[in-house]
């Protein structure tokens, strides 16, 4: 008889704990907003390229979710994708000259439709059309822009150029970063094939701040992770003489083909290659 209250209390505790866990799962680990389906209105937008945009992808204004993609269809006879956006009724003051752009959350994230408000007095209504759209950016273009811009900024302090020869540069392109110990110290200025030696001659533009690099340093073409971009890594040597404008890096290591890389990962995993991957993830 005396044990009755104890198990009743214990059972009650168990039930409360279970529901607390449910509440925690439902509110703390999910976005409740994602499923709030208030009344919505639908507008059309035509895109030249939707990239990886999917139905139910979010529609955001200033980064805040205001609705979701309802459907994606291809107009017969036209070369543009017709995307229907379901926007919450609460946000009914969207100007009709708003620009719809397909963005990507981070480098590898999902794509979403971002709305940038125009200045028109008229607002969008049910069935309206967003005339101004910008298609999805291809990853390659974005990366090119991203790293190109980074390199240009570094050059402001002044730089000196050195050459390096590789038998294979993989997908290395002008504007790719030059890193030492994982930190960018310059960028690739130009890449050209040598018609005589039949290899690639890469010109590296290195920030003037870094003028204490030994002249027997090695240059290697590395990849940020499996599908990241390629960059040139400088591994310092031990010579007392430093690199100067117009020098050539003699010791080079060519780019590994992605197939080789995958093979390496699958067979024995290569911890040294993971570090740059981590660095990349911090972007």
């Amino acid at each position: 008889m005396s044990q009755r209250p104890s198990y009743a209390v214990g059972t009650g505790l168990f039930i409360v704990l279970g529901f607390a866990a449910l509440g925690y799962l439902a509110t703390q680990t999910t976005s409740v907003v994602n499923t709030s389906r208030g009344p919505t209105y639908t507008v059309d937008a035509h895109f030249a390229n939707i990239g990886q945009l999917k139905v139910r992808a979010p529609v955001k204004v200033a980064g805040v979710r205001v609705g979701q993609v309802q459907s994606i269809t291809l107009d017969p006879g036209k070369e543009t994708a017709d995307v229907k956006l379901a926007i919450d009724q609460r946000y009914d003051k969207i100007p009709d000259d708003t620009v719809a752009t397909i963005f990507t959350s981070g480098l590898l994230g999902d794509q979403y439709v971002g709305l940038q408000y125009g200045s028109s007095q008229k607002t969008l209504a049910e069935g309206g059309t967003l005339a101004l759209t910008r298609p999805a950016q291809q990853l390659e273009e974005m990366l090119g822009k991203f790293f190109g811009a980074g390199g240009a900024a570094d050059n402001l302090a002044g730089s000196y150029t050195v050459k390096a020869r590789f038998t294979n540069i993989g997908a290395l392109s002008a504007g790719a970063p030059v890193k030492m110990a994982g930190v960018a110290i310059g960028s690739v200025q130009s890449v050209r094939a040598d018609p005589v030696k039949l290899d690639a001659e890469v010109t590296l533009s290195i920030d003037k701040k870094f003028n204490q690099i030994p002249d027997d340093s090695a240059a290697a073409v590395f990849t940020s992770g499996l599908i990241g971009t390629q960059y040139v890594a400088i591994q310092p040597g031990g010579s007392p003489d430093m690199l100067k404008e117009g020098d050539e890096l003699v010791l080079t290591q060519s780019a590994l083909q992605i197939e080789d890389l995958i093979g390496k990962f699958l067979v024995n995993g290569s911890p040294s290659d993971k570090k740059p991957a981590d660095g990349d993830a911090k972007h």
Partner: protein
Amino acid sequence: MSLSMTRDNIVLRSLEQIGNCGLFLLRMLAAVPRSLRHYRETIRQLWFVGAMSLIIIMVCGLFVGMVLGLQLYDVLSIFGGTSATGTVVAIAIYRELGPVVTALLFAGRAGTSVTAEIGLMRATDQIAAMEMMAVDPIAYVAVPRFLAGVIAMPLLSCVFCALGIFGGHLVGVNWLGIDNGTFWSNMTATVEVGKDVINGVLWKSFVFGIVVSLIAVFQGYTTPPTSEGVAYATTRTVVASSIAILALDFVLTAFLM
């Protein structure tokens, strides 16, 4: 000839078991209104099958979350996507590991004890004694244990999932150094209440709760009242429950996707 005979018999016997199991479920459902008077017994059973399973569920949830965090971090770092660790841990736990592992643990921890308990009650004439005291044993013994299992399973699943997320967070953020904000924001951006928590955790574990409790109670109730019969029934509870859980998991996933 004799081989085909035994095979026939196995098929027939399995079908007979499934049929009897279904009929038993109907008998229990019919007895639910009568067993409402025994709500105290249901609460007591909830204590035994639910609250007493909490420790094992919590410990296992924590370790499943931790090992998921570790493995996913390792794999995702190849792709430079360690920030997605939280998301993948949450989705893997909500959609599959949470309800399935909870159900398997529940079958092993609570299902067997229910089967053995009812089997022994039958072997020691306690069931017959209830019949004689004009107490319906279906309503007093079977239904409370069944209901307790059906109620406890989703709750246990939720606890398992919460501890799993905690374990993933512990490994990912505290040990491996994923940014705390990234971990949570990626998770909350991707995990959906409807698809992952309600369909994934609640619905699945509710169905698993029905199936595991039904099998456990049925095996206990229909076992031959001997020590050998009880031992065999306990084994069958685990085997049948495990197969049913994994098979149903596939069906449910296909339907709920």
